[in-house]
Structure formats: structure tokens, C-alpha cells
């Protein structure tokens, strides 16, 4: 009788264990499924945020370009063509020197318009390359006569084409800040394979001060998008150095 009861107990125990095991496995599956779905949702949200950030960076680059074009037409091509107009109006037969000057001016206007036309193309950044673009920007800055610039290339930064726009926009933003706020007269840009630094000899600033916070957060966020880091070192009256560290972007 005892043996029979034991056998019955064993069978019940086995069935109970099977039920518990089945339920445990099912609960575990449901738990991991929920976690997996949450992670997928999170990834999708991040992707959307990333795309939005890229889009906004591209729009900013576009705006910057338009401003540059407008300024270029107004200050450069417009001035040259006005001069050409004046020359042609005052040109007398036999004034070959004046005619040659006018031809040179027209050629310069054509070259400047070609450069502008290239920068209108959204693929221009990838086509021209980061180094040339930064060099062009420095040239533009130098043209104002208020700054001396230098460019040192120790190695070409490795950046995927998709992230080039963002990096270029970051460099442009730093250069704009130097022009607007630093009071510097010297800008040095240095490029290495994994690093880009922008240094000025301006009045410096406190990176942790609240009024500087938003711009820096914006810069940090963009850096995050391209898996880069931003380091800022600023000493009052001695200038600022901004370093972009490119982590296998």
C-alpha cells in the first residue's frame, strides 16, 4: 500500500514539476520578449533622433552655405562686376591696359562664380573633401583682413562620407564662434588621422559658464552622433583650443 502511495506521489510530483517548468519557461520567454521589444522600440527612437539630428545639421550647413554665397556675391563678385561695369563705361578706344584689367576682372568673377556653384551642390562636401573645405574657410576668414590663419596637416582624418557633413558643420561652428566672440587675430587648425584641433589666441572663456552651455551641448550632441569627443581648453587672455577626437567614426 505504501509503495502504491509512493508511486502515486512520484507521478504527481513529476507532473507538477513539468507544469512548473513549462510555466517558468513560458514566463521567461514572455519576459525576454518584452525586453527585446522594448530594446527594438528604443533603437527605432534613437534612429529617428539620429536622422533628425543629421537632417538638422545638413539644413544648418545649407543655411551657412547660402549665407556664404550671399556674402560672396555681395562682397566679391558684385564688387568685381561693378568695377567691370565702370571700366567698360569709361573705356576709350586704344586703352588696352584698361581692357586687359577688365578681362582679368571678368575672369576672376567667373572663377569665383564657379567656386560658388560648386559649393551649392549638396554633395560638394564629400566631393571636395574635409581638408580642402576647411582650407577654403580659412582663406575666406583671412580675406577679411582681421585674422591670420594657419593650417597644419599631419594626417587625413578618417570620417565616413555620411558623417562628414556633421563634422564639417562642427568645425564651421567653432570657427564662427572664434570670429564672433573670441577677439582673436590668429587661428590655427591642425588635422591628424584621429584628431582635429582649432586654436585661437583670443580672450578665452569659461566652458562651464551657463551662457556658453547651450552651444557646447549642441556641439557635444553632434560629436556623439559621429562617435567623436569634444575637448575644450580655454585660458583667460591666452586663448582657446577645441579638440575633436574621432573614435573610429
Amino acid at each position, binding site marked *: 500500500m505504501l509503495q502504491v502511495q509512493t508511486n*502515486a506521489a512520484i*507521478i*504527481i510530483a513529476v*507532473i507538477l514539476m513539468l507544469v512548473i517548468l*513549462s510555466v517558468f519557461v513560458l514566463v521567461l520567454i514572455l519576459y525576454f520578449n518584452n525586453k527585446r*521589444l522594448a530594446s527594438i522600440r528604443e533603437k527605432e527612437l534613437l534612429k529617428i533622433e539620429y536622422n533628425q539630428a543629421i537632417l538638422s545639421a545638413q539644413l544648418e550647413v545649407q543655411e551657412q552655405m547660402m549665407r556664404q554665397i550671399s556674402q560672396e556675391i555681395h562682397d566679391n563678385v558684385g564688387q568685381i562686376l561693378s568695377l567691370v561695369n565702370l571700366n567698360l563705361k569709361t573705356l576709350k578706344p586704344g586703352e588696352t591696359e584698361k581692357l586687359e584689367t577688365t578681362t582679368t576682372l571678368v575672369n576672376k568673377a567667373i572663377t569665383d562664380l564657379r567656386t560658388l556653384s560648386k559649393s551649392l551642390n549638396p554633395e560638394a562636401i564629400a566631393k571636395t573633401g574635409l581638408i580642402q573645405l576647411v582650407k577654403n574657410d580659412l582663406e575666406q576668414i583671412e580675406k577679411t583682413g582681421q585674422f591670420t590663419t594657419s593650417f597644419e596637416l599631419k594626417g587625413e582624418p578618417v570620417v565616413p562620407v555620411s558623417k562628414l557633413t556633421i563634422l564639417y558643420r562642427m568645425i564651421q561652428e567653432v570657427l564662427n564662434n572664434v570670429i564672433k566672440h573670441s577677439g582673436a587675430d590668429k587661428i590655427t587648425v591642425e588635422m591628424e588621422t584621429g584628431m582635429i584641433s582649432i586654436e585661437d589666441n583670443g580672450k578665452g572663456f569659461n566652458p562651464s559658464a551657463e551662457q556658453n552651455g547651450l552651444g557646447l551641448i549642441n556641439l557635444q550632441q553632434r560629436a556623439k552622433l559621429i562617435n567623436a569627443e569634444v575637448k575644450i581648453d580655454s585660458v583667460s587672455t591666452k586663448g582657446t583650443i577645441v579638440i575633436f577626437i574621432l573614435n573610429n567614426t
Partner: protein
Amino acid sequence: MNVAYYQYFQYACMVLAIVFYRSLKLRSLQLLLPLMILVCVVETAAHHKEYFGMATNYEIYKCYIVGAAIFYYIMFAKLLRMNKRIRILYWCIAVATMVFVFIDFLWISRGNSSTYTTTLTFLQQFILSCLLIAQLTMDDTQPVKLSADPQFWFAAGLMIFAACTTVLFGLHSYIRDNHLTLFGRPLYRALGPVINVVLYLFYSISILLCSRYKQMQPSS
């Protein structure tokens, strides 16, 4: 009329399957309706075996085992993603099993309960439901919320049911011959209804989720 408590769950499940039959079709679970009709007819007949002049209800349950096995084979063939070779193998195993079941019923276990058949068919149903759950869990192309997936609840119910019944009805002859009881009733009579309640509760959830799934479909 003698109706056991677990039969109410079976009837409720059948009614749900009738009401939401169209929704079941959308999730390839439409065979739940004929399966539930079979279950209800068999259980009702088994409870009133005296009307049919039968001493035991083994023969009636054998009809259920054959019918249910065929329905489950067709259902899993629709639910499981298989390539051509695996599908051929699947149907070969199904046909071979059915041939064995008929041989067992007609010659080996004639007039008695069939340990081999019950063990084999319930074990197969357990494996198939595990495979379906694994497939739903590991689906990378279209990850779904399993707790809201009718197929998951169908497979989960069958998995728990088949895990228990494989042991319980596989040892049917042993339990009967050795008078293994719980609360004064043979083990399969004491535990069987509880397992049935769990199974048909899960099936009911599955059917209700199918109806919700239909509501979420865009109207064309």
C-alpha cells in the same frame, strides 16, 4: 445530464470558436473550431457511454486521439515555417504516426487503453508546440508581442497540456492496474480535468486575442 466542471470550459471555448471563427482564420487557427466540436462531442459521449451500450469509454477517446492528432498535424503544418524538405519529412512522420495509431487501435490495444499511442501523439504535440513557441520567439523579421499573440497562447496551452498528459496517460495502464489514486480517484481522473481546464482556458484566451487581432486590421 451529467456534465463535469471542466466540460463547461470546453463548451465555452467551442462557443468562442464559433463566434470568432472568421478571426481564427486570420491567424491560421480556424481548425480550432472543428477540434473543439470534436472535443465536446467526445467528452459528452464519454460521459454518457451507457447510452451507447459501452462498458468503457476507451473507444470513444481513441476517436478523439485520432481526430485531434489529424487536426493538430494540419494546424502545425500551417503555423510552422518549414522548407520543402522539412515539410516532406513532417508529413512522412505524421502519416507514419497515423498508420501506427491505426495498427495499435485495431490490433495491439483492442478494447483497452493505448499507452503507446497516447505517449507518441502527446509527445509529438508537445514537441510541435515547443517548436512553434521557439519560432515565434526567434522571429527576427517581424518581432511580435508574444503575450498578445494568439498562436503563442495556443502553443503554450498545448505545451503544458501535452507535457502533463504524456506522463499521465502514458502511464494510464500502470495507474489503473496499481490503483494509484489522488483524493480517492484514479490519478488520470483527478488530474486530467485540471489539465483540461488549463488547456481550454489558454485556447479561449487565444481565440479572444484573435478577435482583438481582427479589430486591429484595417478595414478594406
